[in-house]
């Protein structure tokens, strides 16, 4: 009876401990997120950003090609005309509204591919969870890069 317990219970436990003990010497595969974060692969496609030129002008010209290319139809662009007093981008046209519905987005990167000026890019920021549906509509203000401080 007691021999049975020894064989069926203690031995597997000891065996398991043995494996654990052996593994203790190995390098860890997990990290303790969120204190630690992993470097993303260079071509990772996550949250979009609207970029600027070095002189601070927006690259986006409001052409809506991204919206046309988007298979999930989650981009909405409303354009307006630049004036000399109120200039947002080089040329005649800029986007007054630029919205992406992140719930619908499938992060395929077609918008980035379609963009003629390289304005919209998908970057490495992946923590997009939120509590309310409305919060997933990313507006132009949220997407636009801050101006490089000079």
């Amino acid at each position, binding site marked *: 009876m007691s021999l049975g317990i020894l064989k069926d219970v203690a031995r597997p436990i000891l065996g398991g401990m043995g494996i654990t003990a052996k593994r203790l010497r190995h390098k860890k595969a997990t990290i303790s997120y969120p204190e630690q974060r992993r470097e993303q692969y260079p071509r990772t496609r996550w949250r979009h950003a609207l970029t600027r030129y070095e002189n601070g002008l927006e690259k986006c010209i409001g052409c809506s090609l991204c919206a*046309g290319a988007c298979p999930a139809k989650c981009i909405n662009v409303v354009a307006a005309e630049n004036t000399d007093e109120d200039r947002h981008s080089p040329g*005649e*046209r800029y986007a007054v509204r630029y919205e992406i519905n992140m719930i619908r987005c499938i992060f395929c990167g077609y918008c980035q591919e379609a963009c003629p000026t390289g304005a919209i890019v998908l970057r490495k920021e992946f923590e997009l969870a939120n509590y309310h549906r409305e919060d997933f509509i990313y507006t132009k203000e949220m997407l636009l890069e801050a101006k490089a401080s000079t």
Partner: protein
Amino acid sequence: MAAEMMGVDMVTILVDDIELQVPKGELIVESVKRLGIEIPIFCYHPRMKPVGMCRMCLVETGTKQPDGTIRKMPKPQASCTLPASEGLAIYTQTPQIIQDRKGVLEFLLINHPLDCPICDRGGECPLQNNTLFYGPSTSRHIEFKRHAPKAIPLSEHVTLDLERCIQCGRCVRFTEEISGDGQLAFRFRGASMQPSTFALSAFESKFSGNTIEICPVGALTSSQSRFRARPWDLESSAGVCTLCSCGCNVWFDHRIGKLVRVNGRTNNAVNEEWTCDQGKFGHDYYNHNERQASVFIRTSARLESTSWTVGLGEIVTKLKSTGTSAGFLLGPKISNEAGFLACRAATALGSRQVAGIDSRVELGANFEVPADSLLSLEQAKVIVSVGPSLADTLPIVYLRVRKAASQKGAKVISIHSSPTELDEFAFLSLCHKPGTLSLLIQGLDGSLALEEVALQTGVSAQALKEAKTVLEGQGVSFIATNQVAHTEGSAALSDLRRLAKKLEANWNHFCETASGFASLASCSGLGMELQSPESILKKCLSGDIKFLWLVDFDPFELVKDRELVKQALEEVEFLVVQSAIASEASHYASVVLPQSLPAEGGGSFTNLDGQLQNFDAFLPKIGMARADWQIFAELLSRMDLAAGMFSRQDILQMAAKDVPYFKEALTGKQDHQPQPSGAGV
């Protein structure tokens, strides 16, 4: 097509080795379409004379030799200026031609800025499409491009981007050949050639919007919808313009439930493919920021928002007591269904007081279906247009008259008291002193001596004599509107009609508003007269009318006598204001009903020559608004005056029982028949 070919010489040509019978002299660019072959084009337009400016349409040609072989010509030819002749052989797909097309496109693109991403034409641009299908895939261009001013406002409506122009001349030819105002011309030569107005003045044409549509690049764009949407953001729905009685077929391009722009839709029996500027740029009221969105009812001094049930309930109660003294003012843009139901309500209530802009009672004229249709007008030999500017009142009729004159050689006689666009090409312009039209007509019908008439009207006796001779000929058509009576008195209008009848000419007394034809027809079908708004307002003052319903009729805008309107609206016991946009009249209203517009609620519309056209809804309604016909259908069923009106189709069927016109339109010619899908909301 076969009937058209009868009596025309046919020739046999070879297109890509396929034998084809075509009428002699037909342009090759058109002939190949019979085989479903497409030749890329820029400057050619089927409704204008070919000029061969862009060289995009090159084809290789050859002639059949007696021994059956084909001898090719050494150089390619422009197919848009090449008429079909016996034994002509055409090659549209040879390696040579493919290379030539690449060459032409490369040339055109040398000076084109390729700012497609910001160009309003990008996405629906013939230059983009042709480059994609026939052009070089890469550019060899490393030199500097030509630069020219961008975004020049050519007029209030049209913006010109000189860099993008490929100098095809379509816009210039449009103003010369179609609209006839000759506003545009080319300045300079070669690469610096620019379309512009002569004195660099504003592009003042009543049809300028069409140049935007026919420009094969984004050189001419609409100032109104500039940057408002890219073509792929837009959804196009078929609609009918309701701004005048012509009933132009148009595309309503909308984005996320908002109307963005209006483009011409081809219907050869109405507007061909053109629109007037009023129609093309005048639909912005869809996006008016004071659109009526809820029902209001007056409680003591204030208007309070309420439900349809309460609003209509109040109206029904009131109508039960004052029904026999109820009056209806029909707006210029209401649907056939609403017009009919309002007339029907007036008869059922026993008041028979209905009014509209196109009223003819006070003018002593009866409602007659015009003798000509827009199509048959083109065949007239002599066209007599009487009254103020036709291009303003009935723009599409004007284009037809111009087409008849310039392409079919019709003689146009323009009779008016101030110069109009017709004078430019009229065979005779009889410009008389204001108020002397009756005299002039008496001169023309021979009851007064010409010298005497000339003296009084200020028209030369010579011109009168010439006019008289021309009028005695065959194929004369008269065009008149109520304007004749408004400017020259109703006697002049009936004199004119008498003259037309005496000459056995076609008499066309056209309506001016989209609701005109149908409301006149409904009234006469129901045994009533469509009165003038003024007479109804006067009856409000005298107390004959105690209940007034404005069916999308803004009296402050449509009736000249402001005092009369004010007093009448104050006097009347109960005022229903049914409108799409909040108007001044709502201040006097007892109940305000929000009405949707045709694109939101649907409706059928009859144009000036009696074609019934369906307009299906595609935009969302605003707030609580309902279609004009829905409002009346509900009223009539609530009052137990009629039942079973669940769709527009039901109402039209009902109208067909009472009104001969509707019966004809529903059972008659196929193209007038509303599609079954038109039913419903």
